[in-house]
């Protein structure tokens, strides 16, 4: 395996790692990897991508084959990094940028920062508030949901620093915090109906988008990724439901 093949393999696996880790679609990652490797016509690639694992095999014309595998930890959604990876791939394939430059750019992409933490916590709060109103809760319900969203956002940001926490656990804690605040505000008299508050405030946690992407993977014939994402979505939902029901039961009210 000469130097060029080593570099291409390293570039392609790192690129795929960043793309899947930040929520890119599985088919797009596989197609990008194939196009990158077969740019010069000398190699062909078979890329196997599932949400937790990437394996790329490059075959030369002689029939030699090299494989590299990586395991993906800590998936989240970060559209800016996905777009940047897409741009690097386009620049390598169509504008013929040298390989070493592209590899260096991947390090820069990995170092891109999110919005600031207080902006993100405020977004959680706005989502809870807006969805409570959209789901026809009263204005005081929405206010309670906004406050619950702030605490939920703070908890999710703290737990988001750790890469390997189970989605069951993080969502259970998030939803427990929401339900506790909802019921406390209800018993004080500020919120009108704790059910509306809880349903509205859950929307940032709920894996609705994940199930849509899972069905998309199934439609494209990628049954492994589709099933894996569905199971992850169900695991997240049961964490949320467990958090809510436990807290409401502790407060003496079985929903």
């Amino acid at each position: 395996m000469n130097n060029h093949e080593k570099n291409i393999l390293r570039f392609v696996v790192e690129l795929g790692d960043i793309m899947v880790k930040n929520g890119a679609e599985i088919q797009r990652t596989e197609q990008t990897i194939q196009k990158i490797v077969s740019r010069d016509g000398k190699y062909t690639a078979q890329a196997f991508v599932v949400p937790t694992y990437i394996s790329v095999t490059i075959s030369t014309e002689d029939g030699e084959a090299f494989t590299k595998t990586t395991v993906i930890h800590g998936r989240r959604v970060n559209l800016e990094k996905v777009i940047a990876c897409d741009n690097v791939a386009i620049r390598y394939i169509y504008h013929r940028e040298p390989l070493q430059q592209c590899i260096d750019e991947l390090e820069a992409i990995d170092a891109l920062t999110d919005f600031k933490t207080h902006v993100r916590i405020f977004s959680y709060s706005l989502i809870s508030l807006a969805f409570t109103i959209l789901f026809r809760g009263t204005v005081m319900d929405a206010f309670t949901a906004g406050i619950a969203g702030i605490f939920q956002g703070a908890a999710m940001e703290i737990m988001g620093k750790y890469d390997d926490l189970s989605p069951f656990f993080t969502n259970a804690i998030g939803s427990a915090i929401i339900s506790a605040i909802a019921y406390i505000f209800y018993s004080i008299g500020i919120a009108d109906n704790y059910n509306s508050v809880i349903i509205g405030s859950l929307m940032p946690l709920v894996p609705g988008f994940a199930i849509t992407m899972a069905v998309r993977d199934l439609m494209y014939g990628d049954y492994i990724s589709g099933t894996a994402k569905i199971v992850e979505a169900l695991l997240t939902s049961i964490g949320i439901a467990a958090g809510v029901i436990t807290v409401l039961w502790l407060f003496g009210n079985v929903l």
Partner: protein
Amino acid sequence: MVIDNPFTDFIFSAITSISFAILFNAPRSKIIYCAVCGGFAWVIYIGLYHATDIESFGVFVSSLFVAAFSRVCSHKFNMPFTLFFVPSVIPLVPGSQMYNIMKGILQNDMYYSFSQTVKAFKFAGIIMASFMIIYLLPSYMFFFKHNRSNDSFK
């Protein structure tokens, strides 16, 4: 006091899309387009749902609109399609159904749980079907302004 106005619905749905775009780290200059798209998504859905009493129809037409709008924006700014589609489609995705699946299981109400499961997959499938309809149409249907990247298609 429940707010039931289409204009406030548009504003709050746009707020939702903006907040999800922030959480998903979308590039700042494009967030406003996601917001407009997301606002229309919810308004079309609720309008059609109240008019025809068929939820699936509302989801279908609304996600067709979101996909078409995202495709126009993606050709206009030369950015990938998913950037505009992902934050705007969030009001339509079957979020509360997913929660209700597990709530039904934990409360031993299996019929409710199953009906919510089927509804969740139905809406997800509808959204993906309209996404694929728009995705498979030829690109020249979505150009509204002459752009350097459009030249090869004319």
